[in-house]
């Protein structure tokens, strides 16, 4: 087994290597504790750190930990885990290949085998769709279909097709952007086929590890984890309610409760909520303050949580459902929607509403 395959276990050559070696998955999970341990680590790191961690020193263990990790993710079968895991594998691969591709010749010679750009593009059927610009180092043109396949809905304004100098069916990208595109292709490759259907024997063998992943996921307290306020990424129902509040329209009690509880869950303080609501003049600050305090359990014994989609639907507060509502979060919980949008967005592009406010105040002062 080659070091290259261990570094990039999603490559088709890596999969072939595992197959050729005649590795039996049920035997592997029963006998190779190192591969299982590293597989678990991949998944745990994916959830908590957003990468799959440092490679195991033994190539074989590192390579075989990849199928183990995929099995674990499939056994837990939570949408958020699938997404985080695929993203983490992609981020790790991206870190590795960007370093390899930009390393100096001297450094490269120490590697026995390395991935070159052409191989990487060919692996994801990108070779025919990515064209180097003659005479311009590090400049490429990507066929528009390929560009959209990998970038649509992913990153900020600069990536939107409408802001790109599209001409003759091709989108210019630079070296860094090209590698991000490949990162996205890796993510798709990793996601592909997940969740796998796992035979009972293997599932039983991995009971402890599966439980461990569930614990790690449960520890991810959504309410504390989010703590980012980007109203543009709110689910349609909450955007709708917020719009109404800000326009000064009357909200029924359950609607007012829903938006206040949602905002509390994403980490907003009572003061901040009051401030966000206060765009309209006919706004009852005291009532809002009381209600928000009540929801967060400060003036009542119970801490209320934001209503799930089913509750929103029964009160008629579920409006403007979109694809994410229906297909991604399966109409489960508005917080899942929001978390998904945050997850999909590029962290550097996100501007927390609270930071924006501060900036404005600074401007006013200056």
């Amino acid at each position, binding site marked *: 087994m080659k070091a290259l395959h261990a570094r990039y276990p999603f490559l088709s050559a890596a999969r072939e290597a595992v197959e050729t070696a005649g590795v039996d998955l049920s035997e592997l999970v029963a006998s190779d504790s190192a591969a299982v341990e590293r597989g678990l680590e991949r998944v745990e790191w994916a959830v908590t750190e957003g990468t799959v961690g440092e490679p195991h020193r033994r190539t074989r263990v590192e390579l075989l930990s990849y199928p183990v990790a995929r099995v674990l993710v499939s056994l837990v079968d939570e949408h958020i885990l699938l997404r985080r895991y695929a993203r983490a594998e992609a981020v790790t691969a991206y870190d590795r290949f960007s370093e390899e591709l930009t390393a100096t010749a001297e450094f490269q010679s120490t590697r026995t085998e390395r991935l070159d750009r052409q191989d990487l593009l060919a692996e994801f059927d990108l070779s025919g769709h990515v064209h180097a610009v003659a005479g311009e180092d590090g400049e490429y043109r990507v066929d528009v279909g390929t560009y959209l396949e990998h970038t649509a809905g992913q990153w900020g304004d600069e990536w939107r097709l409408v*802001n790109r100098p*599209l001409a003759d069916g091709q989108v210019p990208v630079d070296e860094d952007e090209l590698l991000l595109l490949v990162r996205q292709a890796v993510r798709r490759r990793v996601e592909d086929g997940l969740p796998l259907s796992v035979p009972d024997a293997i599932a039983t063998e991995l009971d402890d590890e599966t439980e461990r992943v569930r614990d790690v996921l449960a520890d991810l307290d959504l309410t504390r984890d989010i703590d980012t306020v980007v109203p543009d990424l709110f689910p349609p129902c909450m955007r709708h309610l917020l719009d109404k509040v800000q326009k000064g329209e009357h909200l029924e009690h359950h609607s007012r409760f829903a938006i206040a509880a949602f905002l509390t869950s994403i980490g907003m303080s009572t003061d901040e909520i009051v401030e966000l609501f206060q765009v309209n003049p006919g706004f009852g600050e005291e009532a809002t303050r009381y209600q928000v305090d009540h929801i967060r359990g400060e003036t009542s014994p119970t801490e209320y949580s934001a209503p799930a989609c089913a509750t929103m639907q029964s009160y008629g507060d579920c409006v403007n459902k979109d694809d994410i509502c229906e297909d991604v979060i399966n109409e489960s919980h508005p917080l899942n929607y929001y978390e998904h949008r945050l997850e999909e967005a590029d962290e550097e592009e996100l501007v927390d509403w609270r930071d924006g406010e501060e900036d404005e105040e600074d401007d006013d002062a200056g």
Partner: protein
Amino acid sequence: MEERTRAYLRGRFGDYYRRAEITPPPDANEREWGYIPWTSGPGTTMVRHKSLLDLGDIEGFLERERPRHVYFSAGRYDDPSAGSMSEKHWRTSDLVFDLDADHLPSVTLGEDSYAEMLAKCKDALLRLLDFLEDDFGFEEMTIAFSGGRGYHVHVRDPGIQELEREARREVVDYVRGMGMEFDAVIDEEAVGGEVGRKSPAHNEYLPTDGGWGRRIHERLLAEFEQIKSLDEDAAVERLQEYDGVGEKKARAAWNIAQDRFVEIERGNLSAHPVVKNFAERIAASVVEEDDAPIDEPVTTDTNRLIRLPGTLHGGSGLAVRRIDRDAVDDFDPLVDAVPDTFVGHEIAVEVTDGGLIELLGDSFTLSEGEHTVPEHVGVFLMARGRAEKGPE
């Protein structure tokens, strides 16, 4: 619509289909087919989830059934006749664009005549084709008059077949200019600082060779060409007509147009603040002038059913006409989409909703009541629900 009217139209649609040659779309057997029959009652029910296998050959089916409306799917499936989308197993979809006069901002409903609406729709079609041909570089396109109030473009290039909804929405936003942000459109290029001179770390450029950047640049260039052609005083006077442009800015712009025009050609926004200022102004209005206001859900829906070119539109009696690219400029739907079958006869109709009708280059103003009219006019009125069949 009364029974005798319905029976008449269905019969005459049958006559049309006996003579018509219908070219089915590529991969017709992988597509879902649907139609709306001439049933009575207020609700129209579409018969759908049909495969070509269910219908038999298209021309034979149309002759037998004589439907009111006929559709096929943009999508291709493993099993096109399965009753639900998930059972159909989607493979690929054409990228379809729908321009409908009802949705055009330039159209004033209730004020513009049908002919005027269609003319504005064709202007939008030409703008759409500009995007599809020049920007997207699409080559396999079918353009069709919808038979009603607009135009359809079916794109069948291989590169877009597998795109999902989200990617298609990016295409929609592109041709509509939605989300176009000036700051995101411009490029930054690092420039080396020169000795003894304060130089910005980056120069900002407007892309000149593609996208909305090119559209903004073309206008910027035209504006500066104007300025260049004027003498200083005339230019300064003209420029000051813009909001926020004072004499100082105007003189700066004129000087650049005279001495550093090449910077404008290059799209160099850092040449002078006034250049960027003008470019931003243009960016704010370019979308309104250049966008193609297509109907978003049609393009993003990979399972959409679209009218089959060559069939008749049951709400107008006009043909859904495929238009060659070279013929788009001269295409007049109110002449070219009138089926020959209905030309050269006269029929009696009872007009229930009169007014102006323009077809085949003639215009008729009909009052309510019984009239003998050319058949194509009668069919149009009956199909639109503005007349009933008169006694023979």
